[in-house]
């Protein structure tokens, strides 16, 4: 597993992605995001504030969840 998919999805400025990728190994296990476990249910607003999405609403379809930041 690695970052090629992330790069293709985000089409990000390479500086942003590679720099923060090298800074720390993503380790979501501590937060309950580990392989084989259910994701925590969260309902969050979209960045434009026009609607909300609960992760539970997305069940029934395969999902790629991208956690990132623009910095």
């Amino acid at each position: 597993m690695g970052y090629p998919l992330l790069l293709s999805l985000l089409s990000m400025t390479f500086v942003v992605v590679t720099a923060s990728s090298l800074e720390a190994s993503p380790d979501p296990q501590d937060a309950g995001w580990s392989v084989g476990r259910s994701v925590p249910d969260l309902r969050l607003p979209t960045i434009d504030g026009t609607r909300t999405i609960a992760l539970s609403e997305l069940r029934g379809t395969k999902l790629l969840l991208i956690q990132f930041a623009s910095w």
Partner: protein
Amino acid sequence: MRELREAGELVVVGITQEQHPDRCRLYAQWQEFDWPILWDPFNLTGSKAVPVVLAIDEAGCVRAIGPETAWIYDEFLGLEPLQAVARSEAGSEPANTLVEVARHAPGSWERDHYEALSALVWGTSESLDGPLDVLARHAAERPADAALAFRAGVAHRLRYDSPAARPQDFQAAVDHWRRALELRPDQYIWMRRIQQYGPRMDKPYPFYDWVERARSDVRARGETPIELVAELTPAELSEKSAFREASTATEPDPKGALERAGERFAVESTVAFAARGAEPVASVHLALRPVPGAGYHWNNEAEPLRVWLAADGVRLAERSLVHAVEPGTTLEVNSDETRRLSFDAALEPGASVGRVQGYAVFHACDEATGVCLVLRKDFEVRLER
């Protein structure tokens, strides 16, 4: 990947871990992302670092973290769900609150906490003050809880960026984030929040240097760039700065002859020390504004506002004379905006305390009489680590 989404075989959703959603909106507009992005300023996901991609099956189980593209096509799409798929009924989730609220008994501090978070995330409270007070109180009552400290910092910065900003909101945010990071030094999401406003040398890479290019590219496509609620400060833009030994700038009022602004104008300072490293380096943020109701505004027909800095036990990385509005910037003749500038400062070796004294020189007008004059506003910033 787009064809999979269009065929309904795959859903892509983003979650951004940053304070300002409008910045992510601009980024998404620039990159032409066509999938929804959620906002998690309080780090409710608990993620410790980004970026990361999770492949999640139909039942909501994580099947891979950081998968490669080929694995998506070759394996993920064909995987059976690990559990029976239990799709939530429409309307079964709280419509405008966090799920966590319902998990705690009424009257418990946790219930109060998540209700306050809900109000801030969802904007359901008329005022930020009440929810912020709850988060700040919980952080104070439970000083060993790192997440509470981080969230209190986020709340303070939210109010700082709002019309209801209070003096010291920004400093309170920085202090809470620092406390959180002391408790959880491996939390890179939290560290980034400090580094965003910290000294340039503490940044592992430029954080928001992409903004101007994004705006330019978006305009070139004939679109209007998403407007930023909080404009970028110099501390958020440039990557490195070197400390210099002496200034060649000329002090604008060495004899102290200019009329003092007194209570007509206010200066607020925020000190953000580096998130990591032993060197006591900080970014100092200044915000200058006409005091509401005092009857004065900026006069932009003359020279721009200048700030003179004098260090005591501190080395300055910037010019001693800095401009809050760079020469050549076009402004309305009269304005009353808050003007912000930042500079890096380092305590002298071995020192734990230092001061930066300075003053702003600017042109202002009395709204009642129309008289315009040059004013001086003195300030002192204490650096203590």
